[in-house]
């Protein structure tokens, strides 16, 4: 087997040194009746050539953003990724290493995490960022658990315009614990109403922009939350928006969490992506996940280490801030490289381009006679009301090579025949024009 270096002679010599007659004898601590006496029923071994052919055949059965005009987002976004990102994360020193437990031989990973923490703090308007969580949904659940620890209260007021899968994961995480979820209603403009917040409310959780694409007034929500002594937790599912919208931390958000897949991480059918969490320094000891800090070495040279580890499960065990151990290191590396390449200028241009493309699409859809039900401004995603069942429109678009958006029937049934449409920098004017034509329907 090509991954195994042992020759028969090696095995004989090693067994002799160990004092065992054969490989099977190494397993005598397993009671005989539990030792498997048959071969596993898994497919026979395949050569590299065969594996490639087999996986290419499987991959070919999936629609993907490289071969369609793509307007489907809803928390997983199609953005262009500069070639340098994959080239650099393919360095074996990055992808075949592990958590930087030994800082002297992990400074590359540690410095990159420190750079990520710095950039995320700047983008979110916060003072401390962790070294990633699994995804936006679980990061949101972790942020709420953190807010509950900080506030020592038991009610969580959740915007009804939170991504339904984030809501689902939050419910799963809280199911065993004695907390209460309250839903904040949506106004007719598509934004969350700051009602039903009281002195028992631990935190108000809103998504920015929200699931329906609307940009929330975070300052007003922060004001309403803080007036009752509650924290504002802001979840961000489209991280590119951070380069254009007022930083949540600057608007009063106490914890910012979410999904940074848009920073150079492939959609990959939903993962691996990149959960993040940033907060105020005053709450640093309640932050879940790993943190990297600056220090000096024995010669007085600057270096980086994992720090404040007493928060974590390997030391505090059942009283840790989270059970998380392995996180999304390599995705963090992709995002750090993506942000470094774009920098101040590129990130701003990218965000503005997303806005411009989406605004153009909105204008075209309106011109085609379709309704955009929400008056609140949007970033690169918005709801469009159709004149037919959304699945029918989606099928017609697909037949023309267009993936037109997300059918909201299952998620927000009260909107009727509605689509969530995402327009990123990858959409050409021509493809947006085709989208408007196909969604306007046979009658247009």
């Amino acid at each position, binding site marked *: 087997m090509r*991954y195994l270096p*042992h020759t028969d002679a090696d095995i004989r010599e090693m067994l002799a040194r160990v004092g065992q007659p054969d*490989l099977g004898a190494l397993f005598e*601590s397993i*009671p005989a009746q539990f030792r498997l006496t048959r071969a*596993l029923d898994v497919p026979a*071994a395949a050569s*590299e050539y065969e594996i490639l052919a087999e*996986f290419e*055949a499987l*991959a*070919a*059965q*999936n*629609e*993907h953003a490289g071969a369609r005009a793509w307007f489907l987002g809803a928390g997983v976004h199609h953005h262009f990724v500069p070639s340098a990102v994959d080239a650099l994360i393919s360095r*074996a*020193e*990055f992808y075949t*290493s592990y*958590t930087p437990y030994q800082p*002297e031989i992990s*400074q*590359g*990973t540690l*410095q*990159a995490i420190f*750079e990520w923490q710095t950039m995320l703090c*700047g983008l979110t308007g916060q003072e*401390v960022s962790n070294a990633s969580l*699994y995804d936006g949904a679980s990061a949101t659940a972790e942020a709420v658990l953190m807010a509950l620890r900080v506030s020592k209260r038991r009610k969580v007021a959740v915007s009804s315009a939170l991504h339904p899968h984030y809501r689902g994961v939050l419910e*799963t995480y809280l199911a*065993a614990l004695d907390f209460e979820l309250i839903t904040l209603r949506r106004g007719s403009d598509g934004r969350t109403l700051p009602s039903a917040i009281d002195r028992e409310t631990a935190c108000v959780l809103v998504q920015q922009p929200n699931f329906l694409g609307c940009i929330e007034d975070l300052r007003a929500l922060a004001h309403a939350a803080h007036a009752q002594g509650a924290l504002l937790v802001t979840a961000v599912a489209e991280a590119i928006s951070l380069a254009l919208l*007022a930083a949540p931390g600057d608007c009063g958000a106490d914890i910012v969490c979410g999904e940074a897949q848009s920073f150079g991480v*492939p959609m*990959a059918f*939903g*993962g*691996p*992506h990149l959960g993040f969490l940033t907060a105020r320094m005053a709450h640093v000891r309640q932050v879940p996940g790993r*943190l990297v*800090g600056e*220090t000096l*070495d024995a010669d007085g040279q600057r270096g*980086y280490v994992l*720090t404040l*580890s007493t928060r974590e499960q390997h030391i505090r065990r059942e*009283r*840790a801030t989270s*059970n998380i151990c*392995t996180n*999304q290191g390599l995705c963090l*590396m992709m995002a750090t*490289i993506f942000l470094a390449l774009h920098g101040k*200028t590129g*990130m701003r241009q990218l965000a*503005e381009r997303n806005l*411009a493309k989406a605004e*153009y699409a909105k204008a075209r859809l309106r011109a085609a006679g379709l309704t955009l039900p929400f008056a609140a401004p949007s970033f690169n995603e918005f709801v469009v009301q159709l004149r037919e069942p959304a699945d029918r429109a989606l099928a017609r678009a697909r037949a023309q090579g267009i*993936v037109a958006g997300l059918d909201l029937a299952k998620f927000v049934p009260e909107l009727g025949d509605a689509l969530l449409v995402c327009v990123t920098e990858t959409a050409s004017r021509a493809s947006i024009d085709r989208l408007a034509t196909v969604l306007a329907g046979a009658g247009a």
Partner: protein
Amino acid sequence: MTGNATRGFSYEEDLLFERSRPGRCGVELPRNDVPEVDPRALLGALSRDELPGLPELSEVEVVRHFTRLSTWNAAVDLGLYPLGSCTMKYNPKINEKVARLPGFAHAHPFSPASETQGLLALFFELERCLAEISGMDRVTLQPAAGAQGELAGIMMIRAYHAQRGDKRTKVLVPDSAHGTNPASAALNGYEIVSVASGSDGILHPKAVAEAMSDDVAGLMITNPNTLGIFETHLAEICDVVHAKGGLVYGDGANLNALVGVARPGDLGIDVMHFNLHKTFSTPHGGGGPGAGPVGVKASLAAYLPTPVVERAADGTYQWNDALPHSIGRLHGNHGNVGMLVRAHAYIRALGPDGLKRATQLAVLNANYLLARIRGAYHVPYANPVLHECVVTDRMLAGTGVSTLDVAKRLIDHGYHPPTVYFPLIVNGALMIEPTESESKEGLDRFADALLAIAEEAHTDPETVRSAPHHTRRRRLDETRAARKPVLRWQPGGA
């Protein structure tokens, strides 16, 4: 001169922000073909003007920056990386290639099942393989890492009892367990009861029976345990737990010692997670992403996270999100799919014989290494080990050299240190897992290094205590980092 670590051609490298110069940019957007929009005019105070914290660099500077940083890391592709319990085996390159195929890498989780049949087929087949390997009946691929798998598993145990109207409040965890076990149970609101391992390093039915009551939801157990020792009494222990209505959670961190040789499901485990980045060779990525699928016996299948993949009578694959007692959703989408693709490619490459062979050679390597260093390092338990071994610094007592010093000195010999000071039940533990990827001569060189350090601890302890000597950074001051945390760069210093 020690070992094969030499001074290479290497660079110091400032932070991105210190390299930044106004006016540089490492990307160019395509020509804009739609009207420009002024964000200020459209969004007013909802928009921002400044982007603090982002640097300004050209593409070449960014590439050099990260290439230089990469050279500061140890990695499996550079050499032996014997982190116990982490299973730093070789990461096959074909796995990277197939995961990047556009039909996987650029697929969207909201694309309908009819348009993603290749992915669903892969899910279905991987689930079947994992179930067969572990002796479980169903598997969810959704958890993003082992710890999230534990969380899911304990949630299913909790839901199972709740469904029976059975309010149980405690979970048993052996004292040798990973910290994630008690942390995951605590996230489910359970009180943790620690069960002491016996003097032979394994758990005994009597100790479990004494802790077991009608109030205990279950036991979490790692097998082989964190000492690398098979839990010989596991089947009996499972009987003890089951007899009182409890369930047994299997931490699959060490499943790589059993694949093709024995199956947790046959031993009585009810629910377990798989660490695809350990057993199934997906790369560790500098700290993830991993993937933590969870297998369950049929009795728990109704509690699985949703959705799960089913094969319809016509041979097509469908999502099913209507499990009656599902604990719900754990991930925003379908889990760390890129890792699932890689793990499946690994299983396809090895096949039934290769998977078993890998297990046997991993165990042979750990036993061979232990045989080579026994005598120079204290072996706290006499029981035979499987895929990893634990030794201690006891024989170095009096030299002033501790486990940490041995670990740091290994770096000078060109090796990543083993896991140190774990499990907690062993003082000064060095937990060594060479994996099946290492050749005999590679193990011999590593053993020679460990023996040389043990010798050096007696002849020149100061050199060991001040190691590493050849790295770009010497020992780092963790106390300073924790006392006055500097967690981001700020212009002009913090």
